[in-house]
């Protein structure tokens, strides 16, 4: 009972902050549209993939994954700002369990990330950029939630170990960007040199991008159940490690 109250309280806070900050909201919805518009148009004439798939159509699921990656990681890393501005202290001395705190924070951030991603998804559906079946759409949602939950947990994992927001830039440059660029979001996985192929194969987001590409456009590099399984395992790993580190974090 009390655990649910705590989870709900933390979730509510994320929602309030989300709805209050309009500029952040608009920015996070505009970014993927800009990416898709510019990259899609710029590469339109220079890309040939499996017949009549345009580059915009090809990268659409990848940009969706990018948006989830960014907003989820940033959301998880916001624990750093709560530490910096002291609010984490207020939360950590309350008579509630840390697991409940982390769960609430995660569900709240997944919710806000999903809301932003859904706006983008609806825009893509409306313009006919992706034409999934109903079951494909459901599978896409499952992938989206898994991607978001896993990367929120990863963000919290990093934030639990870091003491000041200066490390944020480091995470941005050496974790978030490589994960995005090595995920096959912007290029096909076929015909890559061995080193690049190896890097993409160990990147969990690769399976998210590929799974959503299957669910939205019907073409995939990996079997969809493999992708789902890898992502699930990754989520399990990040949430367990995150919970453990969050538990040990000094108040």
């Amino acid at each position, binding site marked *: 009972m*009390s655990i649910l*109250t*705590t989870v*709900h*309280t933390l979730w*509510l*806070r994320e929602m*309030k*902050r989300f709805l*209050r*900050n309009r500029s952040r909201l608009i920015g996070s919805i505009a970014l993927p549209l800009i990416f898709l518009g510019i990259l899609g148009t710029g590469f339109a004439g220079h890309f040939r993939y499996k017949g009549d798939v345009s580059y915009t159509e090809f990268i659409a699921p990848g940009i969706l994954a990018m948006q989830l990656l960014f907003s989820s990681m940033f959301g998880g890393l916001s624990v750093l700002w709560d530490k910096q*501005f*002291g*609010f984490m*202290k*207020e*939360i*950590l*001395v*309350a*008579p*509630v369990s840390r697991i409940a705190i982390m769960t609430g924070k995660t569900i709240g951030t997944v919710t806000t990330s999903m809301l932003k991603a859904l706006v983008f998804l609806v825009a893509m559906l409306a313009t006919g950029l992706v034409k999934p079946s109903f079951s494909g759409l459901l599978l896409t949602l499952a992938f989206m939630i898994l991607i978001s939950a896993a990367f929120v947990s990863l963000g919290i994992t990093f934030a639990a170990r870091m003491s000041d927001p200066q490390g944020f830039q480091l995470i941005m440059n050496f974790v978030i960007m490589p994960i995005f660029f090595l995920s096959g979001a912007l290029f096909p996985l076929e015909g890559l040199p061995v080193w690049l192929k190896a890097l993409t194969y160990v990147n969990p987001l690769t399976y998210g991008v590929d799974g959503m590409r299957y669910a939205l456009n019907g073409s995939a590099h990996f079997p969809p159940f493999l992708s789902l399984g890898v992502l699930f395992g990754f989520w399990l790993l990040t949430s367990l490690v995150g919970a453990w580190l969050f538990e040990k974090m000094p*108040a």
Partner: protein
Amino acid sequence: MDVRKNDVPIVISGLTKTFGTLTALDSIDLEIRRGELFGLLGPNGAGKTTLLSILSTILPASSGKAVVCGFDVGRKRSEVRRSIGIVFQDPSLDDELTGEENLDFHGRLYGMSRERRRERIRKTLKLVDLYDRREGIVKTYSGGMRRRLELARGLMHEPLVLFLDEPTLGLDPQTRRKVWAYIRELNETHGLTLILTTHYMDEAEQLCSRVAIIDQGRIVALDTPAALMASLGGDTLNLVVSTASEVFIHSLRKLEEVRSVVCEANRLRVRAAVGESVLPRIFALAQSLGVHITELSTRKSNLEDVFLAVTGRHMRDEPITRPTDRIRLMRRSGKR
């Protein structure tokens, strides 16, 4: 046991905290009774915040025991946390939420029902004069308003004991006095037990019913501010004389009210029981011995003198140079 739990909410015995080779708290023994407005006074780094952190279950003790409201801080953390309120030294509000939302968040975390939250929000915000600003985003609050909101939040769940860590650090004099008034009211009108840390002498002197002076992790003095100052044996007279002859000093020491005389060249520091009444006698003595008094000033003793007498050092020697302190002050005054 139950009576004791109610009458002595804080019982500390042999409490020690070490960080590696550094001993932050060295075998502290202390009891704080119900209804006290207790001050932990000491310079930066004396161990005040460490003690508060252990009492509020944020830090584990290395050895020794502390019982808060009948609960051992090491073993009954949740029970302790429910019984106490804390106002931290550093800001700890969500400044994207309104004042009201910050309190509501707190109430939910402490498992309060909707009705009780609403009632307590109204009461505590009225107490700190923020009720009219309850719907303002905290970002728009001044430093003093934030501090008052934190005070209201600490009271939100009706704790038995309220801890205040440097409650007026970085506030302007006017706001400081206002915060003092709120603290006093909580103690006098509502009978709340308050424990505050401070490195401001005047704060401890004017606010606290009892003070523990902490230095290098130990309690070096413990009493009411008045008794601590009286223990010095009165006020201080500073004299500058033409020639500080042995005879004059000797005769001064023989005066009934005089406790001590310290001589540096032609400057004399005299500590005497009743400062003003002793003046005519000193003048008479000086005249009879042909000594000219060229300067004279009297000063009431304060806790600074107590600290000096007990530790042999001045409390305010070190200016604030540690970067963390400067950041704290900047942030407290609302600049980020």
